């Protein structure tokens, strides 16, 4: 029998970026807030100190900071006709676990998704006609516009300490920025990071080809910084141990050094670690959340935490899983295309090519997480005509190179043996002399890409695993093939000694790491028949339930998701404080 705890006003499930933002912003209401985090507490001093943290085997290969799939995982398959099998090891994507979530071990890339992404259906139909969007692509507007989200992007960038160069301030195009971005009120809080030699070579060629290279914005601090909450961020040391690692210098914008400690200064905010939420509790009408059930994973004890307002702010996939387990909203059915929970799941596509320059050294280990030079000519550039290519979306193209960690980073030209003395010689010869051009591609929703509950496999608490059904559709194959062609052409123009084949992603495998940009499943929108949440990320079915995260994205851009994830969390906090709490109920 579960122990029923004294009620609180607000319960927050998951303490990463968005849980931290909500806790910090809502703390000012004086309401009693409890945040539940299923993983461990984390601090820079104890968890990310040097040399402990500079261990590629432990953190990158063995995923020490990530979700433990022996306790809970996903079953996976490429299409509904296959039998889903559990993801028995982490591979393709790496959800975080513990205080700070994936925000403690991300790379830092922070984009603003433009208005034409947020109003995607309207924009494509206006430009290309209604028949341009394929019948099996449930493409949807998000219910918000770029200008509405702008002030919240600003808040997130200044909270996390993003380094970059604005491309468009109030309509004025800025030199060296991304000319295709939407207008912004002001520049980034920090100047761009140093450009490495590989990025400079790419930028030079890209410019010669008529493209518009710029230094990519990222939450790796180019200078020491104090954010608006007074939290200190250190200067990046370009150590090459960024994604998959915590930062010992506090130079990566992370929730455990910013929003979470600010929230916890307030006596009305309590954080409970090692608490695994298993369900959102409902009243007899099923229209109101009454709190959450959780397990104290230190003791196995089952608890009930009553609350007036429930905020799901776990990893996006976990938010969807909790909604399915709790029976909130109608589960999506790909056959009838009805229901909303699990709908519009998307992932990340792309293409890449590796170039080898004999005699040059790019010093791949002098690097940081999100740095690099990008072009958006085939992505955020709305003037790029998708018509002849027949696809929705695009791909942004970069040279970055976040590390030279040698268990995984050992580029050799095609045809090199994989072991033996010749392999060693080639590995030693090319380690310094290679660079990769990578395209990160959008993924549009497809009716057969979705999330639901598995019928066979369970997690450590006996609950069904979430089942993921996904593969790249024709639209994505077109994006990725075209991106491969473009990067192949840029590569040739850079005149390397040797180069590999530019390779597009054409099918999804759970084995090699690709991206942790899993989106959708509990999407925002304008219509309760096709979305789980309204534009404020409030559940249509349960007005005292709000859900943050990339699970709210109705499609996936080529851009990394954390920018809009953070911005939407700030917007949600604003809405709850200034609208919802004054008059609890459906906001639309």
């Amino acid at each position: 029998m579960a122990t029923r705890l004294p009620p609180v006003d607000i319960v927050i499930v998951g303490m990463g970026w968005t849980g931290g933002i909500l806790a910090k912003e809502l703390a000012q209401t004086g309401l009693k807030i409890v945040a539940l985090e299923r993983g461990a507490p984390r601090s820079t001093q104890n968890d990310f100190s040097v040399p402990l943290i500079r261990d590629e085997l432990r953190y990158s290969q063995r995923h020490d900071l990530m979700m433990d799939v022996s306790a809970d995982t996903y079953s996976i398959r490429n299409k509904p006709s296959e039998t889903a099998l559990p993801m028995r090891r982490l591979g393709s994507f790496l959800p975080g676990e513990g205080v700070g979530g994936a925000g403690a071990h991300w790379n830092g890339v922070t984009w603003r998704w433009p208005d034409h992404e947020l109003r995607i259906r309207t924009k494509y139909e206006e430009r290309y006609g209604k028949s341009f969007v394929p019948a099996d692509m449930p493409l949807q507007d998000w219910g918000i516009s770029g200008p509405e989200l702008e002030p919240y992007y600003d808040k997130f960038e200044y909270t996390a300490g993003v380094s970059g160069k604005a491309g468009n301030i109030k309509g004025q195009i800025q030199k060296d920025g991304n000319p295709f971005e939407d207008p912004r009120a002001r520049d980034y809080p920090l100047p761009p990071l140093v450009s490495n030699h590989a990025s400079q070579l790419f930028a030079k060629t890209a410019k010669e080809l008529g493209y518009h290279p710029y230094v990519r914005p990222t939450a790796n601090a180019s200078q020491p910084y104090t954010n608006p909450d007074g939290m200190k961020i250190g200067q990046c040391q370009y150590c090459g141990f960024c994604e998959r690692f915590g930062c010992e210098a506090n130079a990566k914008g992370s929730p455990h050094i910013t929003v979470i400690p600010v929230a916890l200064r307030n006596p009305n905010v309590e954080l409970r670690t090692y608490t695994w939420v298993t369900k959102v509790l409902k009243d007899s009408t099923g229209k109101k959340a009454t709190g959450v059930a959780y397990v104290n994973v230190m003791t196995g004890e089952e608890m009930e935490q009553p609350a007036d307002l429930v905020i799901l702010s776990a990893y996006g996939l976990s938010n969807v899983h909790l909604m399915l387990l709790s029976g909130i909203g109608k589960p999506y059915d790909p056959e009838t295309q009805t229901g909303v929970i699990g709908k519009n799941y998307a992932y990340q596509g792309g293409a890449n090519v590796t170039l080898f320059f004999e005699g040059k050294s790019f010093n791949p280990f002098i690097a940081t997480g999100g740095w690099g030079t990008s072009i958006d000519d085939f992505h955020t550039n709305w003037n790029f005509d998708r018509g002849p290519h027949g696809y929705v979306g695009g791909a942004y193209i970069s040279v970055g190179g976040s590390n030279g960690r040698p268990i995984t980073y050992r580029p050799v030209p095609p045809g090199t043996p994989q072991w033996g003395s010749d392999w060693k010689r080639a590995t030693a010869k090319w380690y310094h002399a290679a660079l990769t051009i990578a395209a990160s591609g959008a993924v549009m929703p497809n009716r057969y890409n979705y999330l639901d509950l598995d019928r066979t496999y369970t997690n450590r608490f006996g609950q069904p695993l979430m089942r993921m059904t996904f593969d790249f559709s024709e639209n994505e194959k077109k994006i990725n093939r075209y991106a491969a062609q473009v990067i192949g052409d840029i590569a040739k123009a850079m005149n390397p000694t040797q180069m590999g084949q530019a390779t597009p992603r054409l099918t999804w495998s759970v084995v090699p790491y690709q991206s942790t940009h899993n989106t959708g499943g509990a999407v925002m929108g304008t219509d309760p028949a096709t979305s789980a949440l309204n534009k404020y990320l409030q559940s249509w079915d349960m007005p005292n339930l709000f859900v943050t995260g990339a699970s709210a994205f109705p499609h996936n851009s080529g851009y990394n998701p954390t920018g809009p994830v953070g911005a939407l969390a700030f917007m949600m906090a604003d809405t709850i404080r200034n609208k919802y709490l004054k008059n609890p109920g459906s906001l639309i």
Partner: protein
Amino acid sequence: MSEDKPDLKVARRDFLSGVGIAGAAAALSPATPAMAQTPAQAKDLPVAPQAAGYTYFKPTEVQFIETLVDHMVPKDELTPSGTDIGIATYIDRALAGSWGKGDRLYMQGPWGKGTPNQGYQLPLTPAALYRAAIAGSNAYCRKTFGQSFERCNAQQKETFLKDLQAGKITFDGGLPGRVFFGVLYENVMEGMFADPIYGGNKDKIAWKMLGFPGVMANNAENVKQYNDGRRFTANPVSIADMS
């Protein structure tokens, strides 16, 4: 040329208190005992780096794994042999430790073969996989080449490994050789390139081969100086060096 000295003043207390799961394998590593252990334990451990010994592999498995890592990483002008740089020791410790026993591996049935896109689906921990697959490899080599793997000539070994990698070999009982090869290859690379604290990459030899400077990385100045195609060089620094 800048020969940056590592900051050796970094306190070891955080590292020593936080070795945790990964340290289970490291603690047994004789390659770096003084660095990996608390002072009280360190004096009890052997210091001779060559006298590695094995904690998981049985004698026939030792012959297989040493032969294999010496074939994949032969002694040449770049490095000593795979065994001499500790790759076999690394794999032995990994299998004896929590990873080998199935840490962070979802082990609930039923078990389906699945598609290649669905990844690892065998009901075997890494340690159990090695046990079965080494026996299977030797049986296959005896059947095909008339002798166990370690007695095969270089060409036969090469043929066996390439066929294993290509999925052409299924061991008696149905175990797919390609799955074993995938795990084996990854472990050989880990043993060669991981921090020496885990028993391989002895004397940071593989890092020296690449020019990887290791865990010392305060590059805020270097990033500006070395962004014109020149090579940055430094003596590599390992976890033990900083502890």
